[in-house]
């Protein structure tokens, strides 16, 4: 991704550099060549539509290349690959909290292996922040009240800056961290250290503790929709609309159950707004997602080779 962005950047730099040089040269040459001389008068020219059209159309065509190329890169940036490793991120004044699917938690430091697509699923507890890793050329604002997503694919081991790029109050400039990119084996070693509970397992426990499981049963008898395999699917709503059951939809359904009722069900679910933390919410979302990743309901599924949309 970084290479694509740099390639476009260099292309833009060269093209606009040439334009700049051309204009500067013309200005300078005219300024010297047509400086005031005794007895010589300016030659009046009204203009030329042909020229004007030329120097509108040619730049316009170049601009369209800028647009299209940039749009293609952006489109890729906004579409994380299906089998990415997922890291749930909670931003708050003024720190980054990460939670891996395997259950590792980190603050202001993010460990990732080389060669894996990593998808950041991010939300904020307070104000708007922005997740910015200059080395990977990615940036995404992190908003309170919803998820935003960014992804990257690190190719070189090392430690990289992580910045908050959206002004977020007093210690905005202190909301920095680092991304540690490791060789896969080092990463496995780092991972193995904890004996952590995978995020989806945490979520499954919460799912039981909060009583979700009494209605959202894994058969067709529940009072709530069966959640197995719903993630990523289109859901038909009671008012006839359809939505994609993505992270934001699951989040909204937990916090505001009445907002988008699935067709054929009654709006009987109580709200969990203000009752669970962002971290618990993330765990629940991770659990619901895990239900779609393995037919057996196996949790924490990360290397699902079969996962297809």
């Amino acid at each position, binding site marked *: 991704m970084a290479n694509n962005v740099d390639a476009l950047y260099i292309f*833009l730099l060269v093209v606009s550099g040439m334009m700049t040089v051309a204009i500067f040269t013309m200005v300078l040459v005219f300024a010297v060549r*047509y*400086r005031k001389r005794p007895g010589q008068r*300016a030659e009046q020219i009204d203009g030329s539509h042909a020229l004007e059209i030329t120097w509108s159309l040619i*730049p316009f065509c170049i601009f369209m290349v800028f647009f299209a190329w940039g749009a*293609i890169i952006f489109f890729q940036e906004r579409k994380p690959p299906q089998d990415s490793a997922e890291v749930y991120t909670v931003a708050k004044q003024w720190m980054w909290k990460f939670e891996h699917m395997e259950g590792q938690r980190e603050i202001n430091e993010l460990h990732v292996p080389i060669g894996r697509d990593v998808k950041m699923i991010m939300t904020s507890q307070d104000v708007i922040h922005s997740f910015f890793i200059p080395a990977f050329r990615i940036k*995404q604002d992190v908003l309170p009240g919803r998820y935003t997503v960014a992804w990257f694919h690190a190719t070189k081991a090392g430690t990289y800056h992580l910045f908050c*790029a959206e002004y977020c109050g007093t210690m*905005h*400039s202190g909301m920095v961290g680092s991304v540690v990119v490791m060789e896969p084996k080092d990463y496995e070693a780092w991972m193995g250290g904890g004996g952590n509970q995978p995020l989806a397992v945490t979520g499954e426990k919460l799912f039981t503790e909060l009583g979700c499981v009494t209605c959202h049963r894994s058969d067709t008898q529940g009072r709530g929709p069966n959640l197995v395999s719903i993630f990523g699917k289109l859901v038909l709503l009671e008012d006839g609309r359809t939505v994609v059951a993505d992270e934001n939809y699951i989040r909204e359904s937990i916090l505001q159950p009445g907002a988008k009722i699935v067709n054929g069900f009654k709006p009987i679910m109580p709200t969990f707004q203000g009752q669970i933390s962002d971290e618990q919410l993330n765990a629940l979302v991770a659990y619901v997602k895990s239900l779609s990743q393995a037919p057996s309901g196996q949790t924490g599924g990360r290397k699902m080779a079969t996962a297809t949309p």
Partner: protein
Amino acid sequence: MATAVLQSGERETYLNKEYGIKSWLLTVDHKRIALLYLVSITFFFFIGGFFALLIRLELLTPAGDLVQADTYNKLFTMHGQVMVFFFLIPAVPAVLGNFLIPIMIGARDLAFPRVNLLSWYLYIIGGALMLYTILNGGVDTGWTFYTPLSTEFLNTHVVTAGLAIFVAGFSSILTGLNFVVTTHRMRAPGMTWSRLPLFVWAHYATSIIQLLGTPVLAITLLLVVCERLFHLGIFNPALGGDPLLFQHLFWFYSHPAVYIMILPGMGIISEIVCCFSRKRIFGYTAMALALLGIAVVGFLVWAHHMFVAGISLYAAMIFSLLSYFVAVPSAIKVFNWTSTMYKGSITYQTPMLYAFGFIGLFTMGGLTGLFLASLGIDVHVTDTYFVVAHFHYIMVGGMVMAYLGGMHFWWPKISGRMYPEGWGRLAALLVFVGFNLTFFPQFILGYMGMPRRYWDYSHSPEFQILNVLSTAGATVLAVGYVLPMIYFLWSMRYGKPAPDNPWNAAGLEWMVPSPPPTFNFEEQPVVTWEAYNYDEIKEEVPVAQ
């Protein structure tokens, strides 16, 4: 005050017609109001500039050691708010536009002189609120007031700052209203639309933006104030609101606001380039249409400030595409100015030096805008110093250069005195060099990834060298800005009396005495010539003294 310029017993001008504070504070003469504005915006310019210098000094070293984090946040916030709303937006329209538009179209005053005075008082009330905010400890929302930070999380004077800008906004609306009606209704016989100086066209286009954009900012700030006072939830995600709605409404005005700043500058440059090339403008129609085109298309691009903010992918693509449409008329303007010089008879007086600078810096600012409009690159460079550099190239490199160029060009008309040409050229050079030294390194910093609004970058010492360069440049720039103020003041007393038309320039404003009488024209002028009729003007520019 400039009342002491002329000795009594001389020809009556707008300056010496009446004396005393009251004759200024209650004046309805557009020229006097322009001078009231000149004094007030200069005051705010130096306040904003002072904040800028403190910012640059803080960034000299990576650690946050000169001021506290909160202080730094207030500095860049108030630098932005003061400069944008109290200098950049009113500067050219309210000073030069106010002074010149009626004269350029052959009118005795603007259509609504009392509204014009009211507009200045609103500016002063807004400015007083801003000063109150500053003196009471300031505000640290960033000039953009992003919610929910500004509404729920900060303990500074957000309400007074918001109201200050709200009131100043109405000043801007009234100025725009006056210009539109004046341009439509007050033109002298024979002054057809195709004979209007581009300066007037530029202000007409600017006024459209002021009229149709500013109210949206006003209501947005009002909502922010209500949010802050009553916690309604309209922009607060914790209460079901959408912070992006604030950004949409804010940028609906604040992107076109950039054109409020730059379009009048483009008008000035057109006048200057023609005069000092002794030529008619290349492609008058295209130039006028480009101004209107920028004003209209400028309203279709605002969400390019929000590509990474969480808006829909498809909306982002639409806004990126539309952003390139606004680049076309800008490109036309640059090419046409350059072509105007072709086969001219060019002299290098101070205003022309500023015009050269403007064309160069505006080109660079505009082209880096293309980088930001390109989605793939914007993701990386938005909210970094790349953006800071880009908009300073447009606003300072573009607008301030044009403003200074215009001030030098029309100073003889305004004050009746010549400024010292040698000092003028020196200051122009200092501004150009200082500006590039300050802001060019920031493009590189931005691509390296330095986020804007960072008080402390001790985690990234590699940013320091470029920051040192930038701070060094800022000191040069500061000298370049102080100099003109000193010699303008000096020239009011000691400058050579200016002839009516020191540059042998075309245009009605050069046919009235310097300084003009109160009602501009003793008799109603009738226009029988095209704009920029330099072929009909016999004399060349007098060689500088």
